[in-house]
């Protein structure tokens, strides 16, 4: 199959990671295997502290796994940086750069020529309706607008896989729903490979093609769920009976594991 050389394909095989703290071993990831196909939106769903951020650091090459391999686009990238684009929980915009410069400087890091990077930033900010604030410093933007800029910055980086680490966790409920709709629309136009982390079941079901449900630490994949709703997806997909059923299933899965762990 030709699928294995698709540039956006991410494969994790048997990833284990332990930390030593005060002489004790803490296993964080206990044999995680997963794939994100080209142009697929995959979500990692798990309780807080299930090692999702650690997994991201491994994929980003900032840390190395104790066991297991990571590959992107068919090439082994275990412990190698600069292979992904990244959207963190906090918008992480540089306060001394204008909104446009925040985007273009990240593109320069990713190897795009300076003038082209500036033009791309300008063009896309206009396109998502933030052309007016392109020259402003990030602190004048609201939390939701900052996250839009942060998403755009990740989207425009020419890298195979986008990793989004609970990007909406810090937003209020209304802004969050609005941002989900916005992201859904933009992503469905662009169709990039996305690995998305959240602990909101609704968010996972609304956005993803597939979901991996993780256990509390040490994290294992409890179940892989194909999300059956059609694309382009409606923002009110949560009103469908299937949605409620899936949500209950996942809730049950997490609750049972929680009880088994004595939480």
């Amino acid at each position, binding site marked *: 199959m030709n699928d294995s050389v698709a540039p956006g394909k991410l494969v994790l095989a048997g990833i284990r990671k332990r930390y030593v703290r005060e002489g004790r071993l803490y296993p964080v990831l206990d044999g995680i295997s997963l794939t994100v196909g080209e142009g697929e939106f995959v979500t990692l769903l798990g309780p807080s502290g299930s090692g999702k951020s650690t997994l*991201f650091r491994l994929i*980003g090459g*900032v840390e190395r796994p104790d066991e297991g391999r990571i590959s992107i686009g068919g090439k082994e990238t275990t412990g190698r940086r600069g292979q992904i684009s990244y959207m*963190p929980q906090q918008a*992480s915009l*540089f*306060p001394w750069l204008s909104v446009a410069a925040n985007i273009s400087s990240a593109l320069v*890091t*990713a190897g795009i020529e300076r003038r082209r990077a500036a033009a791309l930033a300008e063009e896309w900010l206009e396109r998502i309706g933030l052309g007016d604030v392109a020259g402003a410093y990030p*602190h004048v933007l609201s939390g939701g607008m900052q996250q839009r800029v942060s998403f755009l910055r990740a989207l425009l980086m020419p890298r195979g896989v986008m990793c989004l680490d609970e990007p909406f966790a810090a937003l209020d409920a209304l802004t969050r729903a609005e941002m989900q709709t916005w992201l859904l629309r933009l992503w469905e136009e662009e169709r990039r490979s996305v690995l998305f982390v959240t602990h909101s079941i609704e968010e996972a079901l609304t956005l993803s093609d597939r979901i991996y449900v993780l256990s509390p630490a040490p994290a294992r994949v409890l179940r892989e769920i194909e999300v059956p709703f059609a694309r382009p997806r409606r923002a009110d997909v949560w009103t469908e009976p299937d949605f409620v059923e899936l949500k209950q299933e996942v809730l049950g899965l997490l609750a049972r594991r929680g009880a088994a762990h004595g939480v």
Partner: protein
Amino acid sequence: MASNAWRKTLLPAGTLIGLLLLWQACCMAFDIARYTLPAPWDIARRMAEDGPRLLDQTWSTLRLALKGIGLGIALGIGSAIVFHLIPGVRSALSPIIIITQNIPLIALGPLLIIWFGFGLLPKLILLALVCYFPIAWSMLAGLGQAEPHLREYLAMIGASRLEVLRRLELPASLPYLFSGLKITATYSITSAIVAEWLGASEGIGHYLVLKSKGYDTTSVFAAIVCIVTLSLAFYGLAVLLERLAIRWRPGRPAAAEGGKAS
């Protein structure tokens, strides 16, 4: 707003003028000898009479201070970056640097003159030593203060060490650099005076020595006015540069300044 402006400018200015008037009144009322304490009016008259010479001497001190502070800034920024990038160098050199900072200028000055003569060089060394420390140490602190989540972001997208320095650490250290610069700005004038006092043929420090040896107290006060003005101007310049360089946080530099002053 109006009461704020009153508190910030009018009140201190009023106090200063009041003090000058009180000083003038005391000198007149108690008939104090001019060589003990000259009245403000006498000082002002002397400054007007001796104006061209004072200006000349002040200008010479200003040039010396600018050269010294320039050298101190260049060395300070340069070594802060090196220390930050190579922690071993910092550990190796910091005892020596701290020792140099604790040798009194009064002792160091004559030694430098013995070694390097009465020219510009010993004065420049003295000034650079004084200016170096606040710049280097505050900048070094600033380089390590960059926001952890921005550092994490750059690591995740695979930015190189040099990019982290250029895009994150250097801009983040600017507020610290400027708080060091504001300290250095006033130090540099005082040290320039000390350097000139130790051995020079021009400059306001030299003028000060000459006049105090001749018991010309009025001229000594005139020199003090020039020195204080110079110091304030340097400080003001540092504040102005800070405003120009750090424009991304309107309203916040003032709060940060208040925090540091306390």
